[in-house]
């Protein structure tokens, strides 16, 4: 419902833009891309252009040049802007810096010196304790990684299949069925967890690996929705040509449609990894004890058990956040753009 509303503005802007503005409007669309825009734009452009690697290129540089040419710069306003931006950056990064510093401090130094002093000497003893002996943080990382990997593969494969059916095939009740998919987007997680819990208890799956994976691995309505919009933009002529050449539907799907949609699939992959690595409520509810603890639950338990032992706890939060921070460092441009592209829940 909300996504449909958002499609309006960029779509209209794109169409309203005169020829001289096409570049800029295109850039704006790449940043603010909405599912609806995607459906119309690619069809009008050659396929090679659509899958170009700079598909997600951020337009702010070009917009910047343009506006600086247009406006007379006000040095005072610029200086103030930088000051605010810097303070905000400091406030954003500060808590991370503090927690990383604490993670590399010895408990002795933490107890005797103010929180803001850098670790001296830098020690990895918190991490050694975390991974060895009592706390054994290796298992939560392994469990989380396996859960995320299975959900990622399942969700992508099954969502792509469903989206292709909705976008390119004709069958009875197609639109009704798609409407049902969309309607389920309205269901909040907090409503669903309790009946899911009851179902898992009844089927004896409580506190198992599959309880963590099954509810999420069969595709997500949201991914189906985004992919369908994208697939609809792929010209039918291309598919018909492949069919004439003797390709079956499975080959068309995996060798033509999927490669043409690398951008949106990468975006969905990132969304899936981030949201399931960070997932907390469902694993907290459905698992007990150490066996199937995921990283967020392990961190929460460690914190409540060793409340005062902050150097150890900060080592745990560092470990919980590090993989996604590294992922973010590698793909920051794609990630930042995919947030405004998809709404990223």
């Amino acid at each position, binding site marked *: 419902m909300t996504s449909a509303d958002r499609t309006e503005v960029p779509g209209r802007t794109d169409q309203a833009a005169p020829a001289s503005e096409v570049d800029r409007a295109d850039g704006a669309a790449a940043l603010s891309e909405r599912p609806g825009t995607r459906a119309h734009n690619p069809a009008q452009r050659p396929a090679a252009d659509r899958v170009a690697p700079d598909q997600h290129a951020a337009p702010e540089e070009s917009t910047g040049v343009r506006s600086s040419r247009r406006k007379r710069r006000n040095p005072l306003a610029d200086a103030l802007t930088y000051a605010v931006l810097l303070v905000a950056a400091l406030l954003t990064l500060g808590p991370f810096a503090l927690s990383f510093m604490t993670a590399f401090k010895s408990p002795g130094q933490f107890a005797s010196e103010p929180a803001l002093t850098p670790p001296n000497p830098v020690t990895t003893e918190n991490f050694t304790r975390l991974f060895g002996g009592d706390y054994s943080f290796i298992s939560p990382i392994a469990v989380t990684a396996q859960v995320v990997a299975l959900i990622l593969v399942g969700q992508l494969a099954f969502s792509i299949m469903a989206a292709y059916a909705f976008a390119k095939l004709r069958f009875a009740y197609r639109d009704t069925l798609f409407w049902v998919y969309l309607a389920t987007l309205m269901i909040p997680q907090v409503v669903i967890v309790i009946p899911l819990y009851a179902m898992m208890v009844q089927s004896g799956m409580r506190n198992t690996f599959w309880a963590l994976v099954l509810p999420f691995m*069969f595709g997500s309505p949201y991914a189906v929705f985004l992919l369908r919009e994208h697939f609809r933009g792929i010209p*039918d002529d291309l598919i018909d040509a492949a069919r004439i050449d003797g390709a079956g539907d499975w080959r068309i799907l995996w060798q033509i449609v999927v490669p043409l949609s690398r951008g949106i699939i990468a975006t969905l992959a990132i969304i899936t990894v981030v949201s399931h690595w960070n997932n907390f409520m469902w694993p907290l509810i459905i698992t007990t004890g150490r066996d199937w603890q995921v990283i967020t639950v392990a961190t929460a338990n460690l914190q409540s058990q060793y409340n005062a032992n902050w150097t150890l706890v900060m080592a745990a939060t560092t470990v919980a956040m590090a993989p996604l921070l590294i992922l973010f460092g590698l793909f920051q441009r794609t990630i930042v753009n995919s947030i*405004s592209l998809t709404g990223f829940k």
Partner: protein
Amino acid sequence: MQTSHVQRSPGRMRHGRLASVLLAPSLFGLAAFLVFPILVVLWLSLNRWDLLTPMRFVGLDNYFDVLSDPTFGNSMLRTVIFVVLVIPLQVALGLFMAVLLTRGLPGSGLFRVIYVIPWICAPLALGVVWKWILAPYDGALNNLLGVSVEWLSNPALAMPAVAGVTIWSQVGYTTLFFIAGLAAIPDQVIEAAQLDGADGWKIFWQIKLPLLGPTLFFVLVTGVISAFQAFDQIYALTPNGGPQGTTDVIASRIYLEAFQGGFNLGRALVMALVSFVILVIITLVQQRFFSERITYDLS
């Protein structure tokens, strides 16, 4: 795009078998883990069940029970306070930062990336980090300020602290949508206003802000919906509903009701259903409110 359909056989069922194969897995997931649970919700809410003893049908008892329960009233109130503290500030700060970032200054792209960082991290992990920062004796904030304030255990401070952490982690995310919205406003609209002698202030309030209507709508709806369900960071910062129940928001209440202490699933489900209905109403009201004010046509 539609022309190629001519050469195909016109029957509605043309791809029926292939479609059912393609749809089977996701349809199964949808039915088993979304639609069926919703039906279970309705049935369980009419029963009293603690998972151990047999289920007992009690009709609407759970509903009367919950709706007249002061702890539920408190949770609703706390949730509203949380949303009212978080959303206006998060949206206003997001818009403000977006305006600064679209001034075309070099380095804006880098700042934009920095502000999103908290958003990528697990809210639970961030909650734990802030629990230390806000700790009374060895926490970083009190250390920095040279005081020993009980940020999280003082009933007057716990809710603002929890809201503050939430705003901190969400502003960068909100900013991205406003940057996109601002970038979508055509230059010629702004140029026309400048030719008519409007200054930057006037352009912002009378042209850019109204044109941001759809973005604002999206940010408000999704923001309210997610703030209404906030759980992870609140659980990490103030477990068990916080000091004197001051941060006992609805998601935390549902969790405590269903899985801690009572194992009272029926009551928890009624609470979940009530919040679901409220969320749908909020969405509809916001939609009506905005559809009267949004000007889509920019040409």
